[in-house]
């Protein structure tokens, strides 16, 4: 077995460290080593977005990042989205608009949507569709996901004023 690396990183705001082989992806490390199973594997090659996380605030597919690359980075996963048990407005909106069916894609869509709203708090439908195109959903036909993002955006805008 090739040398394992000791990686020190911050996950959802908390310092964390783990051992991993270079060939293990960040997704594998999250799921199998750290047992944070919220990020899902749909393709393992960057095509479905189910494994979406933020690395230093940038939305990426964690299956296309090596675990060792997490050294010194800030990683945000779906597990950190609800704060103290309080759901994020996007999580609430996905529930209320039934923006999910089987739910396997949902953590990825939520991470992407959160990244979108942080960058563009009032996206129109086309902007949402463009931003979410790296996330595949086979159940919903996207309609209710788009509406959920719109609803959350509106609610978050309302909270601000």
């Amino acid at each position, binding site marked *: 077995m090739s040398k394992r690396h000791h990686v020190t990183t911050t996950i959802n705001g908390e310092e964390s460290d783990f051992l991993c082989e270079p060939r293990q992806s960040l997704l594998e490390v999250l799921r199998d080593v750290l047992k944070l199973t919220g990020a899902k594997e749909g393709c393992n090659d960057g095509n479905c977005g189910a494994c979406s996380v933020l690395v230093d605030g940038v*939305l990426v597919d964690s299956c296309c990042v090596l675990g060792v690359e997490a050294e010194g980075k800030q990683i945000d996963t779906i597990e950190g989205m609800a704060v103290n048990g309080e759901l994020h407005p996007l999580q609430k909106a996905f529930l209320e608009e039934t923006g999910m069916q089987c739910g396997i894609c949902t953590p990825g869509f939520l991470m992407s949507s959160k990244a979108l709203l942080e960058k563009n708090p009032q996206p129109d439908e086309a902007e949402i569709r463009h931003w979410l195109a790296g996330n595949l959903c086979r159940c919903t036909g996207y309609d209710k996901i788009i509406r959920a993002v719109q609803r959350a955006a509106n609610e978050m805008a309302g909270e601000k004023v």
Partner: protein
Amino acid sequence: MHEFDYVVAENLTEATKLLSDHKGSARILAGGTDLLVIMRNGRRQAKLVIDAKKIPELTDLSLNDEGLSIGAAVTCRQIWENTELAGDYPAIIDSASLIGGIQVQGRATIGGNLCNAAPSADAIPTLIAYGAIAHIQNSDGQRQVPVEEICQAPGQTSLSEDEILVKLTIAKPVAHSGAKFLRFIPRNEMDIAVVNVASMVELDSEGKSFLKARIAMGSVAPTPLFVKAAGDSLAGKEVNDESIKAAALIAREAATPITDMRGTIEHRKQLVEVLTVRTLNAAVARAKGEQS
């Protein structure tokens, strides 16, 4: 995936030393969106993966009176987020904003796109159309090569085993010039180009005739193609449908595509013509300062 070692290179000297020490069994890691995928599916093997994202020269993105310099490890997302770039280099934005989806763009680099040397790579035709220069470092120093001379075959570049791409530079476009990149994919996102085309034009001050044009295209040959003859055919010609169509036909003739799961020969040839016309028209519009 097979076993490999991983190291972060802090500077160019270290990177080139590691490369030459490993004699072809080391690979540079930029965004990994090609490398990790092809290592995983067994199409590429490496004993050592050298993470190049901490090398200062590779992460620099700068824009000045001379032109644009894109470090080899600058991501697509850093490019399209840079609002200053859009003015002079809109076709770079065209390419950077349609490689993969947002997640892929957060990692994928223009340098990686070039060094992966896929026939369908979406940044390469644009770089060629802009006449970009690749700056390559080896143990002895740096050399500069026009981008159209980099790709040799699918997945194969003219970089030798101990070389690393440092940056890509593009001279500041002259007045009355414009460029456009378009690709055709069956879906609207997350697809490999069936055909892609980039065109860059320089017009006279009235915008009536072409002074110069460069056209490049992908997915129609083993490497991205610089169709010099198509661009040259426009020099001195009036800007009209006829001259544009003639250039597109030259491009069509130059294409030698295959039929595969992504498209047929016939369809690809037609797309070359259609996209050449469309990119030229759009580049002209941009050259004239019209929205496109």
